[in-house]
């Protein structure tokens, strides 16, 4: 194994180990989260119907407060966060989610910038390639756009240049 391959293997190994550790740590804390933490997590993902741009967790409105109570009650009753989210989507529509699920038409806002970037780069490259001299015109001497006069003048001036040298 060459030195370079060994260091690459080392880096990949380190990344995998750290990633696995992080994954393990996150699932473990997820299990010991308190009821209030779990309720807050759900509320933070829901849009407050009264104030529109605040989450149910952040909104001081009374309806948001009552929604937080509703979330806690449902968690206590043994419902999963997915079930509770599904309940709110059922009543308010996907609108209630601060971040809409990335599915179906919701992919459009995610895809448009990437498509635009790729298209932009492609157009840019096409423009540059077209501007590149001699690419589409063949060798300079046989440029079909040159008139006979022009070609003769070029030949004459080239000859003038070469003569003194």
């Amino acid at each position: 194994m060459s030195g370079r391959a060994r260091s690459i293997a080392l880096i990949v190994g380190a990344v995998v180990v750290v990633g696995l550790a992080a994954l393990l740590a996150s699932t473990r804390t997820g299990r010991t989260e308190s009821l209030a933490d779990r309720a807050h997590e759900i509320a933070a993902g829901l849009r407050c119907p009264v104030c529109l741009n605040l989450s149910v967790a952040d909104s001081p409105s009374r309806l948001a407060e009552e929604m937080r109570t509703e979330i806690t009650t449902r968690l206590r009753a043994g419902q999963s966060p997915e079930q509770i989210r599904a309940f709110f989507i059922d009543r308010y529509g996907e609108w209630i989610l601060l971040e809409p699920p990335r599915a179906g038409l919701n992919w459009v806002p995610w895809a448009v910038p990437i498509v635009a970037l790729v298209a932009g780069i492609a157009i840019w490259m096409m423009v540059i390639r077209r501007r590149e001299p001699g690419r589409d015109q063949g060798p300079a001497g046989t440029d079909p756009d040159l008139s006979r006069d022009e070609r003769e003048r070029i030949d004459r001036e080239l000859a003038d240049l070469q003569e003194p040298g």
Partner: protein
Amino acid sequence: MSTDAPSERGRLETDEAGEVAEPQRRRSRMRAIAVVLVPLVLFALLLASGLGKDPRALPSQLIGRPAPTFSLPRLDTDGPIALHDLAGQVVVLNFWASWCLPCRQEHDDLELAWDRYRDRGVVVLGVLYEDTPQGAMGFRRELGGDWPIADDPGSKTAIEYGVFGVPETFVIAPDGTIAAKTTGAVTYEWLTDEIEAALRKGNLE
């Protein structure tokens, strides 16, 4: 850039016929302006179309689905009022509050509809939203009306119905499904249209 093959622009600039180069240059400048302006205008149009919309004026999720059940303490009299007690009737469920201005505006329309249909199997039920019973009774004394009104502790029923704010009005058909919903002050015309449609639907079954 190499010099043995003149670029398009280089050729234009050295062209002896100057009047050929000028329109070409103007055309490329116009193209550059279009490249900037067209996306800008499109973006402005997108923004303008979005800004004119009411973010709350969404079609209800619940149209055509069974109305969420409830049993609420009445404010106008003692005892509870439950949706299943009203089965077989058209229920006009009106979420309101004494602090809500459009609720005052729609009050006469609700009263007219209530008076016209109360003997034809239609119940108007006011559900209080983010308000105190004292506030509700003050509103009643001030503006009148004798259709049932009920409190909604913890806004449980409002959340069940996906209420954003008041007033919101639902029409529940005799079969217990939600037939229509409107946001903002309800009009007598809307009420009569939807109530008639719900009654027709109830008679067909």
